[in-house]
């Protein structure tokens, strides 16, 4: 059997599949569907400094093979997260990858400083797909300077044993350029892709459906975009681990990401269809790797760049 363990930037996880930020809350609700310790870990909904109400409803629209969401990072804030959610995961031995989000570079730094004292944080995912209130609402992830300042500050304020993953947005002209600058700023790896910006209009009222007007598109519809982005980043930074995501529904989908250069995968939207999808995808992926003769996941990482199976 293929060894299920994967090592991401020096930290070992039990398996190659994770939940995706915002698609598993803080894990608890999925525990009724599968054993959270069997997968790589839970990537939490992005946490901010303070409680946040999110956007007005409607917050979602189903689209062909996908969905749009405009949740607006609703959450309880870091204090409540540390008091309630992180201990729940830690007590059960579930690996916690904490996603953080901010509106200013300083807010990310603050969050990192607070998490520094938390031994139960296995890794940090830095969600930089947020509007930078100090830069006309331009999304951090869409600008080389903003993206790298956030990463730089988070890296400076995080213990060196805890890797930080920059969560990249596909809504840029060159994802490789953003990745390179984040890597130079200290990112130990990348999570990609975040949702891509989309919109739907109600054909009766002729108004945007979402309370937030535009929203993030996710699900199988965007999978080919996600695989391409992973491919491009692995091409320029073949030694940097990638947590790949975007429309993964099956082990075969996950294998596409691994072959394109991801070391592990997150299952997001498809968890709404099948709450045990993260574990199912992991089992299917391991089965496929085994059939193809890989002793470990890492052997298969980026194999499509090296001529595939021979």
């Amino acid at each position, binding site marked *: 059997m293929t060894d299920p363990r994967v090592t991401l930037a020096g930290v070992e996880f039990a398996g190659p599949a994770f939940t995706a930020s915002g698609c598993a809350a803080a894990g608890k609700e999925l525990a009724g569907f599968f054993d959270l310790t069997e997968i790589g870990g839970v990537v939490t*909904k992005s946490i901010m400094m303070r409680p946040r109400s999110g*956007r*007005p409803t409607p917050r*979602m629209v189903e689209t062909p093979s996908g*969905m749009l969401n405009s949740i607006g990072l*609703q959450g309880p804030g870091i204090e409540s997260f540390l008091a309630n959610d992180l201990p729940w995961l830690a007590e059960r031995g579930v690996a916690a990858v904490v996603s953080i989000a901010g509106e200013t570079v300083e807010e990310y730094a603050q969050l990192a400083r607070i998490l520094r004292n938390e031994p139960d944080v296995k890794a940090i995912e830095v969600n930089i797909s947020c509007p930078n209130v100090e830069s006309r609402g331009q999304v951090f992830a869409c600008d080389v300077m903003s993206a790298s300042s956030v990463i730089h500050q988070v890296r400076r304020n995080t213990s060196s044993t805890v890797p930080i993953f920059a969560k990249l947005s596909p809504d840029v002209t060159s994802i490789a350029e953003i990745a390179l600058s984040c890597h130079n700023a200290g990112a130990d790896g990348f999570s990609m892709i975040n949702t891509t910006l989309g919109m739907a209009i109600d054909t009766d009222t002729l108004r945007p459906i979402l309370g937030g007007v535009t929203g993030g598109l996710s*699900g199988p519809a965007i999978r080919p975009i996600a695989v391409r982005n992973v491919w491009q980043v692995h091409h320029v930074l073949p030694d940097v681990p990638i947590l790949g995501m975007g429309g993964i529904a099956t082990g075969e989908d996950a294998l596409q990401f691994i072959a394109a250069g991801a070391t592990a995968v997150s299952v997001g939207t498809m968890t*709404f269809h099948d*709450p045990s999808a993260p574990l199912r995808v992991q089992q299917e992926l391991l089965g496929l790797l085994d059939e193809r003769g890989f002793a470990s996941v890492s052997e298969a990482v980026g194999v499509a760049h090296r001529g595939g199976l021979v």
Partner: protein
Amino acid sequence: MIQADAEILSVRRDGAYYHMSFAAPGIADGFRPGHFVAIAVDDAHILRRAFSIRSASTKAGGALQIIVSPKGPGTQWLVRRRAGDIINVIAPLGQPFRLPTEPVPCVLVGGGYGVAPLFELANQLRARGCGVEIIVGAGDAARLHGVVEARRVSDAVHVTTDDGSAGEQGRVTDPLRRILAEGRHPAVYACGPMAMLQAVSEVSAEFGAVAQCAVEESMACGVGVCMTCVLPVIGDDGVTRMVRSCTEGPVFFGDRVRWSDVGTVPADTLGSPEARDD
């Protein structure tokens, strides 16, 4: 809460709706009125569809009944299934109606297919010695559901339609107001469109009755992980929060839901943009 492949036992047209029944081993045991089931539809649609559980029998391994209004592609796909087809279901989900601890007279109000969860509720209330009157309303006669069955499980049934094509012409709040005016009914249970729930909550409050309302918000996951299904609800601490209707609902106390603000984030909500601009 169980996720299972369920065999469809029957699909039967009834006016504007369809009765569907499917085998659901194990689910019936945990069922209480107000719970819902989330059903996966065809490959082209990745999100599940939510339906109130109309009834759950524990016989023959367990079966669930739902009422489906074929509105969009997912529900239309569902009502085209035939006996023997397999669907994937997750149930029971959500917070059910809370039952009174005393044998008090209750009023149950259902709009359209919203009567679905009320039959079992009526049975359980009567089993506790509660009196049960049911108000069944709809836009027109075709969209009235379950009047006959309502009679079987209650002491009295009141029927209203907007166009007068069946029962009394008017809104469910017309008979509700008359019944509550008797001053005997401390508890109201309602399920139906949001506007109806708001009106029922207001009339109940007016007469000092406690209303429990099963709301219907657009849901992506149904299990509490996505945060799409929220509405502004006032907590025990008096603070308004955007609360998930799939896990903290679908049943809420009518006086806790800020009905007029549904679809907005009121300025005084915990963590609202306004609250944060300090």
